[in-house]
């Protein structure tokens, strides 16, 4: 599979860091891949741009940070302004029109998917927005299997939230099913 570098960005509370951790755990624990997950810490992370990085690879990862991501997910205008320009040529840029008005073209596949609207309409709880985003991302680029994500969720979530997360994951995936 080579190496995929991802940046998930948004604002505190949207769950981008959790999404990154879930994806990295799925890759390592259930796909036998190597992954490193880092995130921006500090006062700047609270209420403003939050960023979580994941590198997924089939070979050892040394330098753990993402400089030029293959995949950028932006869930706020601010994070879009900050991180869309660093995308690797030929990469994938995923945004949500609820939060992001895309202003210019980057040399990457740009997908605007109304994930927030779908979550609110079908599930009615923003808490699973991040998992819906993961579903959409996997629909566009099957980095790991959906079952692997579900296994991680099973281990991390209280049982009563599991079904809602599963729904959100599949909903996200369905938004980009061709």
């Amino acid at each position, binding site marked *: 599979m080579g190496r995929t570098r991802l940046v998930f960005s948004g604002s505190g509370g949207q769950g981008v860091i959790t999404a990154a951790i879930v994806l990295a755990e799925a890759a*390592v624990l259930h796909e036998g891949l190597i992954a490193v*997950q880092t995130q921006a*810490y500090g006062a700047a992370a609270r209420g403003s741009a939050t960023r979580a990085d994941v590198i997924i690879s089939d070979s050892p990862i040394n330098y*753990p940070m993402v400089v030029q991501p293959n995949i950028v997910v932006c869930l706020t205008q601010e994070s879009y302004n900050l991180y869309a320009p660093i995308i690797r040529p030929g990469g994938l840029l995923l945004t949500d029109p609820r939060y992001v008005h895309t202003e210019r073209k980057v040399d990457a596949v740009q997908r605007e998917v109304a994930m927030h609207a779908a979550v609110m309409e079908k599930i009615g709880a923003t808490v699973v927005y991040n998992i819906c985003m993961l579903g959409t991302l996997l629909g566009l680029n099957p980095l790991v299997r959906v079952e692997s994500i579900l296994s991680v969720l099973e281990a991390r979530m209280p049982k009563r939230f599991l079904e809602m997360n599963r729904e959100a994951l599949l909903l996200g995936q369905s938004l980009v099913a061709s």
Partner: protein
Amino acid sequence: MEGALYAGLEFFAGYPITPSTEIAEHLSRRLPERGGKFIQMEDEIASMCAIIGASLTGHKVLTATSGPGFSLKQEALGYAIMAEIPCVIVNVQRGGPSTGIPTHIAQGDVNQARWGTHGDHAIIALTASNHQDVFAMTVEAFNMAETFRTPVILLFDEVVGHMRERLLLPEPGQIPLVDRLKTSVREGVDYHPYLPREDGRLPMADFGGVHRYNVTGLYHDMWGFPSDNPKVVHGLIRHLVDKIENHVEQITRYKSFYLDDARTVLVSYGAAARTALHVVEGQRKRGQKYGLLELQTLWPFPAEVVADTCAGAERVVVVEMNMGQVCREVQRVVNDPGKVFLANRIDGVLVTPTDIRQTLRLIAGQGV
């Protein structure tokens, strides 16, 4: 954390501080599950003192902190060195001095680990660049603390502390563990707590057990009572220093990457070594003879390994997140200090491959 549990950790006292908080958080749950004791103390000094006391009673102990807390622990650290009390102190480094930059990486406490507490002494400090090695070095730290009856410092950094990556837990018994050397002297028979055996080691008796003895930070005789007898003072300081400095080879841990024919040797440790290895592998793909010496033992400084590794190199580049604390040691031990350069970053951002490559180009006279 898992390494400490594997090594047989029984008591943790701490005062949570970023970026080491996760250690306390995790152990507050995991340690009591295994019958161990976790206590959040009122401050950093008390945490250090608590683990010293707990160790004396026969248990494997740990505390975790970062730069500001490590500063506060220095006096008690000296006490543990003087009274020869095994303990492990984790310092997940952040930017300093003072409260500095709590959530970002630095490796500025290397010399503090060496000379933070006053007076001549020797110390053991280990580090690691990835979670598998963090586990291994933590087990080593507990083993060395018991073997040499001394505090051992685990000098990690914010990036290694906060990142998530794979860790394969070894089976119990896969890594040998060193248990405490306890005295065989029976109750009612004179026990000399500070009389070294012929091999220099001192069997311990659990404090509060069958033997009554004195523990002090003052120079002391074989009974543990204060002494200003020049012979006693000289003998004790030689013992404290020699028991570590005479075993550098036994204590030295390092990793070699592509060093056999390397013309340019990078020397690095901790998270910075990950970037260094990234650069080395990139240069090798271009046919350039680069290699990396990753230090895992920082103190006692592995002078022989560094000197031998760098002997044949045209240039040596030390990659670290401070203003040259290990670089100076490397310059001190290599055959030609003029060939040693520093590639550092001191702004709270992990040194990038580009940073190192720019320094390499500058050294080669190619500009940036």
